């Protein structure tokens, strides 16, 4: 009796919402085919995948590939490189746009402020391939940056052939690409601070430094915290595209991260099961990190991010 009721209710809901389902259908197919089927397919990490046998036909391999990864020489290096590159990128790259927004806020001339903003957005609009082409060109041995170093009497440095320089180049060029763009959101947060607060501070004789310290920064603190939490949540899912474009065999020691390793072993060497195991390991850590970060965010601001 109850079963029949539920069945009928579902049917009635389906009829009632038929156009809604129709509108949702293409996206639903997309999510199933390109997200959920791959999730199901991730089981090849536990199998000896052969193309001819297919995913379900390949033999189970248990945790063989995970063990192979955990005991491999690369395990420690890849984790270290991923965490360091991503972590240092947050450490230096995250405060930069905040600083720019605070400095722009001190500029009196609107024309100057607008010009600086428009110009610093520019690198964000250059495609990644072209931006990396420019980075490679400027940092090569007879490139502009080395010309400047030589001009001041320094030694020319092979930036992208030296493992110790990969992280600085990656991070500094990242700041160059994103500092202007990233400052937009902080500038709008600053614009949202009540003017009365500043007027009250002026009456109390506060200097501009004090105003910045006691009004502007606390005023944008919430924005800063939300964005920082989001950034930290993505620590392990550092994009491979820029690394792939900038690294080479001489810099693997510091530049090779989990996602680029997965790409080389999986796509280039066609070691599908092994690469999937590495990727799955990374996905699980990534998800755990996101859940932790989400819990922290709930505590801090009483709202969850997802």
């Amino acid at each position, binding site marked *: 009796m109850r079963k029949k009721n539920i069945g009928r209710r579902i049917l009635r809901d389906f009829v009632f919402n038929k156009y809604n389902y129709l509108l949702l259908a293409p996206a639903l197919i997309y999510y199933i085919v390109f997200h959920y089927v*791959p*999730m199901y397919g991730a089981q*090849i990490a536990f199998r000896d995948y052969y193309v001819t046998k297919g995913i379900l036909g390949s033999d189970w391999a248990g945790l063989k590939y995970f063990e192979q990864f955990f005991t491999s020489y690369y395990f420690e290096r890849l984790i270290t490189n991923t965490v360091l590159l991503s972590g240092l990128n947050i450490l230096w790259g995250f405060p930069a746009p905040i600083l720019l927004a605070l400095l722009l806020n001190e500029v009196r001339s609107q024309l100057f402020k607008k010009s600086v903003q428009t110009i610093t957005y520019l690198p964000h*609009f250059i495609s990644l391939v072209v931006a990396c082409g420019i980075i490679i060109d400027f940092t090569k041995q007879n490139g502009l940056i080395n010309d400047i170093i030589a001009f001041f009497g320094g030694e020319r440095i092979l930036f992208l052939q030296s493992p110790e320089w990969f992280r600085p180049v990656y991070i500094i060029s990242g700041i160059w690409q994103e500092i202007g763009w990233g400052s937009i959101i902080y500038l709008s947060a600053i614009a949202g601070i009540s003017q009365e607060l500043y007027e009250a501070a002026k009456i109390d004789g506060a200097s501009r430094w004090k105003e910045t310290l006691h009004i502007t920064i606390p005023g944008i603190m919430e924005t800063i915290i939300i964005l920082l939490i989001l950034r930290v949540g993505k620590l392990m899912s550092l994009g491979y595209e820029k690394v792939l474009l900038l690294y080479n065999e001489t810099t693997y020691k510091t530049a090779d991260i989990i996602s680029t390793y997965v790409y080389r072993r999986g796509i280039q060497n066609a070691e599908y099961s092994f*690469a999937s195991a590495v990727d799955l390991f990374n996905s699980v850590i990534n998800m755990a990190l996101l859940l932790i970060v989400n819990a922290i965010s709930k505590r801090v601001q009483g709202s969850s991010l997802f």
Partner: protein
Amino acid sequence: MIKRTKGEKAFNVFNLIFLSLLSLCALYPMYYVLMASFSESGKLMSQSGLLLYPAGFSLQGYKVISDNANIWTGYGNTLFIVVIGTLISLAVTSMAAYPLSRKSFTLRNFFMLMITFTMMFSGGLIPRFLVVKDAGLYDSIWSLILPVAVNTTNLIIMRTAFAAVPDSLEESAKIDGANDLVTYARIVLPLTKATLAVLALYYGVSYWNSWFTASIYLRSRDKFPLQLILREILIANDNVNTDNELMAESIKYAAIIVSTVPILCAYPFLQRYFVKGVMIGAVKG
């Protein structure tokens, strides 16, 4: 009027200088590339330091580029991907965002959870690659569109915009006999044009910039998008045929200019929408 201390004056000067230098760092690379693209390769290579005007004058780079069929087929492919891809993405995203924003849609929370879960966990690069292959998209230009047709963040932005349309408008449409399809197309969509424009830009730019998917899914050179061709020209750490270094040098800068100038020309007009998009994206749904 307002008294300023010596310290504040010094800070102002420092601030203006610092911001000017920062702007220079953002602007100069593009200027350098422009000047280098008109330079003679030989003179350019022996030249050292800042380039304020072309080293020698030559249109050789542009000539080689204009004779290079790859660049132009790449351009054509990219235009196809950007236009068709953006249209498909916008249609699928906005269609899905509508039911997900309706309170009357019973299973909306279930579907929303299903969709946002993909932001947290993914099957990974390899299973995805195998699915695309099994779907028969390998070496097809559709492999650059269909597997990335919906961006979940964009979907959430669209849904938030739809949810902000007053319920009373839809209710009155319902009373007049409009079904959900009509409400979506005639009432909700026209009211959210600004958000649609922002999403069109976001999708358009991501299709324009994409090269990685193309590098793993495509084999035939005549299907390569522009960015993949540029990667061959600009980033020589792969087994690219650098037969003539001088030639490569002159081609490089002209290729950057030819591929970037359209974007930079549109940039002042589009900037407004981008900035608006950052704001919309910041208000999470």
